[in-house]
């Protein structure tokens, strides 16, 4: 081991953070603790665990040692104080909102989000009495204008799905700080290898592990990271953290758990009561994926830049929206927030419109036509006919998913093969 005071680098953390050898067997790779429950040492130990007076394992809905390694791993990679693994990226978002919002409260969210998140916020949140107010990352003052006394948080994506949009995290973090509300950043498309939102003032990070962190298209999962920066006790706006909790004999979570209280609130109130726990098997697969995250992300970015450059010279292509391209609208922001590469997901427009999009996704042979991103395999989709179908035409265009738009998630195959497949797809009559 390097000496204790050395700060390990990103690749080292990707492999080692959270994963000491198993304390009972010495197993070097984190075991899959495929169990619902854990025996108590004695009655007193059980009481201490349920009362949050000691650290430990009770029941896999609340915590599991395999999932815990994943939580610490991602928290370490993001530079946060603690993590919480849940069943999906969407579950991570709901659990975060549940800890912050009460009926009648508002959240301010970027218009440029994954279509599923727009649906979740527009429709499902209404049933909880949480109201979303949309703001435009291309018009930063619109965030400030959207903030009211009822606002409890701001939600953005670092690199937004599907459009290859880079959000100005630092500028929005300043507005959040001024308003006294936390900034939540969905860092799914960037991963901490490309972008570290806490360095720019984010307070909470959410991930869909399903994408690049897992990286192999085999597991759905989500993760919440607590930045440890937000003062939950400044006013009474966040009673889950600052007020005595009836669920736990009057414990005040912020006072008791300090700079990782938000992650604890999400676990012992949100995950415990709403229930979307991650399976330890999925946690194991994602952990294995993360071990190679820096290698994979760099190759994803290098392949993607080559594909984007090639597409931008094609006669069938009207435009390419990839912030890694020198002329792109978001190139400057990409250089600041994602200097090693602008990710592997981007969109381009076909001169032939909706029909040309449908034709391309039907004729490719290496690219898989499916509704995911962040796989070793190259993926293609025509959002207007699939993921963004539920949105109105205006919302489609706003979210970067108009009728002519095709989205790629460029994989880790040889870039020559990826380009050859697009070439044959585009020339198919």
């Amino acid at each position, binding site marked *: *081991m390097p*000496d*204790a*005071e050395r700060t*390990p680098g990103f690749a*080292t*953390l990707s492999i*080692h*953070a*959270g994963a*000491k*050898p*198993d*304390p*009972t067997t*010495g197993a*070097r790779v984190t075991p899959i603790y495929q169990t619902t429950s*854990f*025996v108590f*040492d*004695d009655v007193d*130990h059980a009481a*201490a*665990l349920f*009362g*949050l*007076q*000691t*650290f*430990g*394992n009770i029941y896999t809905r609340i*915590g599991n*040692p395999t*999932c*815990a*390694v994943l*939580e*610490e791993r991602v*928290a*370490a990679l993001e530079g*946060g*104080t*603690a*993590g*919480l*693994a849940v069943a999906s990226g969407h579950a991570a978002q709901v659990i975060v909102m549940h800890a912050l919002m009460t009926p009648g409260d508002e959240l301010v969210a970027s218009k440029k989000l994954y279509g599923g998140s727009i649906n979740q916020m527009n429709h499902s949140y209404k049933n909880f009495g949480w109201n979303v107010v949309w703001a435009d990352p291309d018009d930063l003052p619109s965030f400030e204008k959207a903030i009211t006394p009822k606002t409890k948080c701001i939600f953005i994506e670092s690199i937004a799905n599907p459009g290859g949009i880079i959000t100005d995290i630092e500028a929005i973090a300043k507005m959040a700080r001024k308003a006294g509300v936390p900034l939540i950043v969905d860092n799914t498309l960037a991963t901490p290898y490309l972008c570290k939102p806490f360095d720019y003032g984010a307070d909470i990070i959410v991930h869909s592990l399903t994408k690049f962190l897992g990286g192999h298209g085999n597991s759905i999962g989500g993760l919440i990271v607590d930045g440890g920066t937000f003062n939950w006790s400044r006013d009474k706006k966040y009673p889950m953290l600052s007020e*005595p909790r009836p669920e*736990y*004999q*009057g*414990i005040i979570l912020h*006072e*008791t758990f*300090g700079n*990782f209280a938000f*992650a*604890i609130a999400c*676990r012992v109130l949100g995950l415990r009561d709403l229930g979307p726990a991650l399976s330890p098997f999925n946690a194991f697969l994602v952990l294995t994926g993360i071990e190679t995250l820096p290698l994979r992300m760099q190759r994803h970015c290098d392949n993607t830049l080559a594909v984007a450059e090639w597409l931008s010279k094609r006669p069938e292509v009207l435009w390419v929206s990839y912030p890694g391209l020198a002329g792109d609208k978001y190139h400057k922001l990409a250089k600041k927030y994602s200097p090693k590469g602008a990710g592997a997901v981007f969109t381009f427009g076909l001169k032939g419109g909706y029909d040309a999009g449908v034709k391309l996704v039907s004729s490719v042979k290496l690219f898989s036509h499916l509704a995911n991103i962040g796989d070793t395999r190259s993926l293609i989709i025509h959002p207007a006919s699939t993921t963004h179908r539920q949105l109105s035409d205006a919302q489609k265009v706003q979210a970067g998913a108009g009728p002519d738009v095709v989205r790629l998630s460029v994989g880790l195959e040889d870039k020559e093969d990826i380009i050859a497949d697009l070439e044959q797809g585009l020339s198919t009559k």
Partner: protein
Amino acid sequence: MNHDNYSDNYIRSILNTVKTIAMVGISPKENRPSYFAFKYLLDRGYRMIPVNPGQTAKPILKQKVYATLSDIPEPVDMVDIFRSSEHVLPIVEESLRLTPRPQVIWMQLTVRDDEAASLAEKVGLKVVMNRCPKIEYGRLSSEISWIGVNSRTLSSKRAQNLGTGLQRMSLGKSDKKDAR
């Protein structure tokens, strides 16, 4: 001593050396952080002595409560201060008058008094401020990793069980040369 950033070895050597801890300002209420920390450290094998002038009538977790540090009839290795910063100085001054003197003054999360710290350091005591010994024990023993907290420690050696239950881990050995 840099009180913004303690090395893991500094903290580990303190928690590995001290055996008797007097906790000043402990609450008898089961839902208070001081009670949590007291109970946790008691469970990890420390001799814990509660100090609170308003609570001497009844023991806390079977431990007799003393009104002041000077009332404790046995040597104390560490004084753990669970009072807000403005109350720290007289407690440190009283600690320094004890014979034998404690080896460590520890101030809880959010508690800090640099003047009191330098008084104690001048006569050879170790000082920790704005930290919780329960959290630090949990972090260095890896127990805290069970609840997804970033322990900021990496190791290819397995954590050792404390031997008093399945879910109680030991701190591991301190590296003497770095335990300044």
